[in-house]
């Protein structure tokens, strides 16, 4: 019942959000448009840091359709090397490197809200494509390039690989959601949040609501990449 109410609330708010900020804007090349409005954020069943499930809102924004690739990153940093056959694979970099790239390309890293909304839309789904899981829905092996999942599922706004492939950096520090009073010593401004899981974790980490934390100056052996967002002027 509570979920239904939250969903209805999202629908009503989305309808009331009004036209100007939700007029579809043609996205720049390689990006998709995410309209302003509310969505269901968090989970009742996940880790304590995913609670409470709540309504969050964002402005409209553009977000990269795919994670940034090795060859794209190498344009920014010519010293960056990678195997030739992996030019279209997702790049694995620290948060600091990801942020520097985003600034260079005139974009920024997504907030957690922006990332989660782009991944799950407004209906509170578990994965970017819906609520069931299959290995064919994700890039299962990092030998393979971006977007090479067998079923090639898109998120509601047209993003690929938001579950699996590599983890993705967000702009945010690891902090509790409003109303969450479950203590965690890791909260604060020590760790950045990464999302989306990778090819090396259980399916549940690929859920759109799952959060994980690592220091911004390392990938700590996790395969972590990123995608960027761009504000709409």
């Amino acid at each position, binding site marked *: 019942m509570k979920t239904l109410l939250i969903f209805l609330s999202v629908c009503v708010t989305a309808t009331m959000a009004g036209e100007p900020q939700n007029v579809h804007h043609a996205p720049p090349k390689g990006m998709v448009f995410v309209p302003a409005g509310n969505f269901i954020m968090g989970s009742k*069943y*996940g*880790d*304590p*840091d995913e609670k409470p499930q709540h309504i969050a809102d964002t402005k409209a924004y553009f977000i990269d359709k795919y994670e940034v690739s090795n060859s794209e990153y190498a344009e920014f940093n010519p010293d960056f090397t990678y195997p030739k056959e992996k030019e279209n694979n997702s790049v694995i970099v620290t948060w600091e490197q990801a942020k520097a790239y985003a600034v260079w390309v005139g974009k920024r890293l997504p907030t957690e809200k922006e990332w989660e909304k782009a991944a799950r839309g407004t209906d509170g789904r*578990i*994965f970017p494509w819906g609520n*069931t*899981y299959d*290995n064919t829905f994700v890039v*299962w*092996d990092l030998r393979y390039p971006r977007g090479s999942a067998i079923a090639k599922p898109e998120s509601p706004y047209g993003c690929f690989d938001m579950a699996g492939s590599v983890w993705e950096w967000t702009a945010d520090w690891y902090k509790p959601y409003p109303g969450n009073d*479950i203590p*965690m*010593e*890791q909260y604060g401004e020590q760790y950045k949040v990464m999302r989306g899981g990778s090819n*090396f*974790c*259980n*399916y*549940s*980490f690929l*859920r759109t609501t799952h959060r*994980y934390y*690592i*220091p911004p100056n*390392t990938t*700590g*052996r*996790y395969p972590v990449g990123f995608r960027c967002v761009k504000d709409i002027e």
Partner: protein
Amino acid sequence: MHKSTLYLLLVFSTLLLVPLVFAQKVNDFPKKTDPLHIKVNMFDKLIRGNHWNEGTIMQHVIFPPAGLDRPIIGSQADCLDNTAEMLAAYSYKYALTNNPNDRDFANQLFDGLLKLETVTGIPGLIARSFNKTDKPLWHEKVLWYPMEWHWSTSMKGYRWLGDLSADKFTSLFYTVGIFWELCADYEYKQKAAELLDRFLGRIIDNNFKLTDLDGKMTLWGNFCPNLPHQSLNSLEMLMALKVTYRITGKERYNAAYHMLIDRYHYDDHQLQSKILWPDEWKNPWDDDHAAKSLYMLMRYEDDRSLLIKYRMNLNRHWYDWQNHDFTFVGDVWLIILYQLLTGEDVLTEKRIQGIKDMWGFDRRKSEFKIPTEDGYKIVESEEEGSATAMIRNYWFGRYCGLIDPSW
């Protein structure tokens, strides 16, 4: 004596001593052509001599001078698997020999498992591995996830590795179940029951999630009925509940077993534990843990409708296993187990030769990139893998009467 002569003598003695200081305890390797029982015996000595870490078995040992003046544990992520294999091996062995020394060694290994719990400071939370050390070791930064190493709050001067996985979970229930069944005396049966009760009780309290020190689910610790998880994890959780109910007699575990089947259909979900296609998704470690789970479940379950489902799962595995060759020591375990559970005679001449040809590991030289304050240094050193799977396979086969002592 002249001063310079004394100096030369000192240098000479030091040079003589250096190899002794750095030498491994056990250096005798079998020949590939040795009979199986000789090879197993020699690898057993190598493991007990070089891989022992306060009751646990190190999966990977790096010898000096790689960063320290004593052997160190390399990638310790799977230490619990190797300890579990050795404990199962000695439980099967004791069941055959009734030798109190074998039981004593098994008890020491079980105590090692208990230490993996004690070191975390939280009842029911079990570490992947631990080290006694006064400072973080270099391999923590490069061989696993550095954030998963913690100082122990309960054992001063120890560091432990968290993020326990479903694999380690399965190894624990398999080995403690076998130890309880074949080897443990009354005192150790009690300890075994209490360990599984604490471990699984904590997981059930967290809605079938294996949670870490930070309260979050571990990377592979998902058995939760409300969250999507691997089919194999459903099988593993059913096995854990069955074993723990048998050992503790606590109705809580029997009720949980039937709840997961009746309400959440884990008996159907487990059917697809084996990934048959595409080939690159097949995982030998998954096979190993499915085998451990089916081995325990199919012997303990007496409900015919459930047994049919577990047999279906085994049949799906066999569809793949029957085409394995014997280049991987893990295959021996699968073939023996399949013959034991089904009664089918699958030990062909080729497979028997594969069993006879089992091998532990070769010591090899490797270069290690050791982090330093201003970068890293390259050091060449020797390292050893593990032979515990081979030793477990041997004593399992002997126990089942499928490996001849003369081989």
